[in-house]
């Protein structure tokens, strides 16, 4: 293949361009802006929603909920997964729970949380956290099982201090698993947050999509959805990818 066509950034841009072309072609074919508007028809409603303050407000609410759910889900999931990977009896006791919660549909957990706790913010966050913990725990359990036993023996002979072990021996080995859990986690969490908002909140992207769904306003649904995808791509490019590159530095050096 031509060398310039192999440049990663160029391939990425071309790939996005192709998706855009597909959208334009589909919009041409349907020829009905109320069913599928072409990309440029979204600019005016986007600018209006951004200027009115509605878009930033709802975007901010959803982002806030994503953060509120992401932090405890990661913390609890990492701790639980690590314990399950290291202590066989904990694994035996908790594995059936994990299977149940992994296979419980997100929707069921959300509805139950709203029914039991009430239609409030606590219920919304708890529903998302409970949905995400099993995934994080499953990934981290594999990470904890994969810890190098030779390094463990070395650390024991030389009596490294517990904090130094955690920071310089355990964490570097778990880092790829934590990064994988975080990246898949953030993607899943924001989708579940939208469902939670759709069903029982009066703010956030999910609520707005629900509102415009009832008005059959495809353009506004797309505006809200795409804005959030944009924000998540930024988070990915500015926070997740650089931190992953940093912890992987020793592999490529």
């Amino acid at each position, binding site marked *: 293949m031509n060398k310039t066509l192999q440049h990663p950034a160029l391939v990425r841009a071309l790939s996005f361009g192709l998706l855009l072309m597909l959208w334009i072609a589909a919009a041409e074919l349907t020829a009905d802006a109320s069913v599928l508007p072409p990309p440029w028809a979204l600019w005016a409603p986007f600018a209006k929603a951004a200027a009115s303050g509605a878009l930033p407000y709802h975007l901010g609410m959803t982002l806030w909920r994503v953060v509120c759910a992401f932090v405890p889900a990661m913390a609890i999931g990492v701790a639980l997964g690590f314990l399950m990977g290291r202590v066989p009896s904990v694994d035996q006791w908790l594995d059936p729970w994990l299977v149940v919660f992994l296979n419980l549909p997100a929707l069921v957990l959300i509805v139950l949380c709203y029914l039991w706790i009430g239609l409030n913010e606590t219920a919304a966050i708890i529903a998302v956290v409970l949905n995400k913990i099993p995934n994080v725990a499953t990934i981290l359990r594999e990470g904890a099982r994969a810890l190098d036993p030779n390094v463990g*023996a070395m650390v024991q002979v*030389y009596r*490294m*201090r517990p904090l130094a072990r955690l920071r310089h021996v355990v964490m*570097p080995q778990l880092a790829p698993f934590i990064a994988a859990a975080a990246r898949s986690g953030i993607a899943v969490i924001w989708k579940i947050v939208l469902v939670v908002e759709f069903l029982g909140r009066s703010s956030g992207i999910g609520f707005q999509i629900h509102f415009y769904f009832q008005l059959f306003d495809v353009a506004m649904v797309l505006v809200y959805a795409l804005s959030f995808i944009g924000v998540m791509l930024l988070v990915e490019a500015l926070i997740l990818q650089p931190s992953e590159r940093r912890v992987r530095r020793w592999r490529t*050096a």
Partner: protein
Amino acid sequence: MIKVDVRRKAFREEEILRDIRFEMEIGETVAILGTSGIGKSTLLRLIAGIDPAFEGEITRPDKIAMVFQEPVLLPWRSVLENLTLVHPELGAEAAHSALERVGMVDKVQLFPGQLSLGQQRRLALARAFAGRPQLLVMDEPYVSLDPATAEEMLALTEALIAETGPAVMLVTHSEVEAHRLARRCLRLIGRPATIASDLATRSALLSREVHHDRA
């Protein structure tokens, strides 16, 4: 003084070691010989305190160092940090001179993955001696090195043992290595393995002129 009294060591039902009793002084080097799979490494892990599940008693000093079959470094930390994280009491100067002693002082900022196997093993040696151990346990420290590098490592080990003066327990296949470093040789045989002979090596008896591998 190091006292080893292993009455029984088994993995599940399979008995590996039985009635292994010997003593050694600080400053003494003992080689453990035996065919592969006989349980030499298992015995070393008991002596180093990595594996506490056995019947018997081992009296060992506090400061122990171990050189493994693999270098067993922290690949995600620099050469210097591999020394200072394991020995936090070591100052920057002492760490540098420890690396200088094994000829690694120009590599301090590299990651272990950027070193050759010989260099990784030298770093492992530096790490072992940097803590001034009273007991040094070595599990086939020169396997998979080419003869010249192995010879260089052997000479380096001899010098470092002479400087630091720990009790050294060395597991090896090579009689040459055993006879060169150790004054005393324990041979394991049987299943479960036990000590077949406890002999002074030629290096203790003769001067060290002739080394030929009988194995």
